[in-house]
């Protein structure tokens, strides 16, 4: 019983860190530039498809994933320089609305293209075997996910606390005018963070594919999960988003084990609604 509970907790943690990474993808871009990036899930799916295609010609999944994430970053860079720049030209509420509709349109566009050229589901194999600690059986994918996510979190933490660019980003999140006065160019930071968020979500997508099938249709679902996590954590709080992802992952896994998977999803959305009603300033 206890062993089962612990196994569930570890599965939940693995799911949670993935949700955290997805949530960060929303938080970074919205917190910084007020664009609710609805095409986020597309980055994850593209990363998974690219990894599975490269996998044959490179030594291992880690290399394939790195190349795939780099490709996704390039893709995000091109998008940022072209379409997203047009959205950043607007100000205030106009930018928020334009951001929602433009990224929604782009997500439909790319989802459709993915369906046409890369239909079908994809799995990725972690290559890490299961480990049994006494009565505990921990799946290899959970270990791989938690370990990789720990490395990513450490990198993100280092970036935002110790690099000039990272601290600059946090300055822009807090006060855009103040940042300009300190000599930071917000538009440049916005570009870099948009690309960074795509890379994080690309990596999260690869981790997600270790345990679940990824199809072009997953992109929309992953985007919605990311938004809900980001809201529960507070859209301008990086640590809040990470914590929210882990907690929601554990809650969803336990709710799923107890009541079935559909109620797990309902739990996620209901939590987001409750948080927004209680604290609407979470996202504004």
């Amino acid at each position, binding site marked *: 019983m206890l062993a089962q509970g612990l196994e569930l907790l570890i599965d939940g943690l693995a799911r949670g860190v993935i949700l955290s990474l997805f949530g960060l993808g929303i938080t970074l871009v919205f917190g910084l530039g007020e664009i609710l990036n609805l095409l986020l899930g597309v980055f994850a799916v593209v990363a998974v498809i690219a990894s599975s295609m490269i996998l044959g010609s490179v030594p291992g999944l880690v290399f394939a994933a790195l190349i795939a994430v780099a490709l996704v970053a390039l893709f995000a860079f091109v998008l940022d320089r072209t379409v997203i720049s047009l959205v950043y030209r607007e100000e205030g509420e106009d930018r928020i609305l334009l951001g929602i509709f433009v990224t929604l349109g782009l997500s*439909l566009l790319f989802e459709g293209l993915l369906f046409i050229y890369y239909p079908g589901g994809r799995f990725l194999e972690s290559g890490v075997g299961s480990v049994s600690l006494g009565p505990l059986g921990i799946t290899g994918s959970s270990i791989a996910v938690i370990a990789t996510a720990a490395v990513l979190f450490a990198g993100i933490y280092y970036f935002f606390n110790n690099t000039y660019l990272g601290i600059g980003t946090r300055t822009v999140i807090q006060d855009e005018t103040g940042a300009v006065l300190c000599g930071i160019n917000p538009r440049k930071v916005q570009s870099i963070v948009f690309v960074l968020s795509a890379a994080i979500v690309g990596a999260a997508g690869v981790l997600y594919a270790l345990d679940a099938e990824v199809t072009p249709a997953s992109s*929309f679902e992953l985007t919605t999960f990311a938004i809900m996590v980001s*809201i529960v954590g507070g859209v301008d709080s990086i640590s809040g988003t990470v914590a929210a992802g882990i907690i929601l992952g554990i809650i969803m896994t336990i709710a799923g084990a107890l009541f079935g998977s559909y109620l797990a999803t309902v739990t996620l959305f209901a939590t987001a609604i409750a948080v927004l009603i209680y604290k609407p300033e979470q996202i504004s």
Partner: protein
Amino acid sequence: MNGNSLQSTVRDQLPVILVFAALLVIPPLFFDPSTTYLSRRFITVMVFAIFAMALNIIFGETDQLILFMGGIAAVGTYTTVLTAEYLAVSPWLTLLVGAFIAGVFGGLVCYVAARRQFTVIVLAIVTFAFQMIIMEVIIGLRDITGGSTGIPFRALDVEFVESLTGVGPFAIQFYVLVAVFAVVFFLYTWLTNSKYGLAFAAIRQDEFAARATGIDVIRLKVFAGFISTFIIGFVAPFYAKTTGIIIPGLFSFQGVDVLVLIILVLGGLRSRFGPLVGAAIVIYLDNLLSQFGQWRTVTFGLLLTILFIYFQDGILPSATELWEERGIREKLPGLRSGE
């Protein structure tokens, strides 16, 4: 004097008269009893035009962006059909029950949103989360809703009118929807010309200033929310009838909300005929693209992106503006020559 004012009223109302006259002659011209396909598409145009008019009231007039139109339509349809089944009566009698439940739900969400001072994006996300929950619940409660297999639905025919007038069932469906469209159309015209229209404009421009001048912002937002979702809930069973089966997929975010948004923006926000024009174009495109599978999604995604970046005013208002500009230019030489 009287004749003149009558004449000018007729001239002002000419577009309205022409549009409704055109709508009335569509069934005899295009509805072929042997193939129901075309008739179904015309009915779909009317349904989506009415959906877009409902969104026009809540989003266009009061700036409340709702992204659960599919969910509201599902609430309306399932309530109407399931209560009719439970009470063993015709769904005609329970249409208002479904619409009322949908309206109360929508009004309640708008009340909480207005009370808690949600910004546009908060309301958009909350309603979107409700959309997802409604979908999951409908699929999950398969004992009641039939889950993904759905409920066959062929009611809402009026045999006695058919036998009385000799008009086919699809034509009657169409006329019923034209009547609903007319009611919503005149309601919208009246609303925007009344003190409500003025109050809506005030809320849109500056909510705090509106509140300071004594406008009950919460009441008006709830009012707009109730009316819009009531209309969607009322029309939704007719939407379900076009496919003959009620399945959750009919009410998905991509299937309803995305289309209605494209229709409204294409036709023009706060334009009276925009929803009808937008619906006709979008459903025609949808029809054209349906044989190309996912290229349909690609096209609509592209359309949504381009529309929002470059044509936020909608095609109908832009066209009218262009027309009026040209009219003035043509008159200019005449004015200069001293006429």
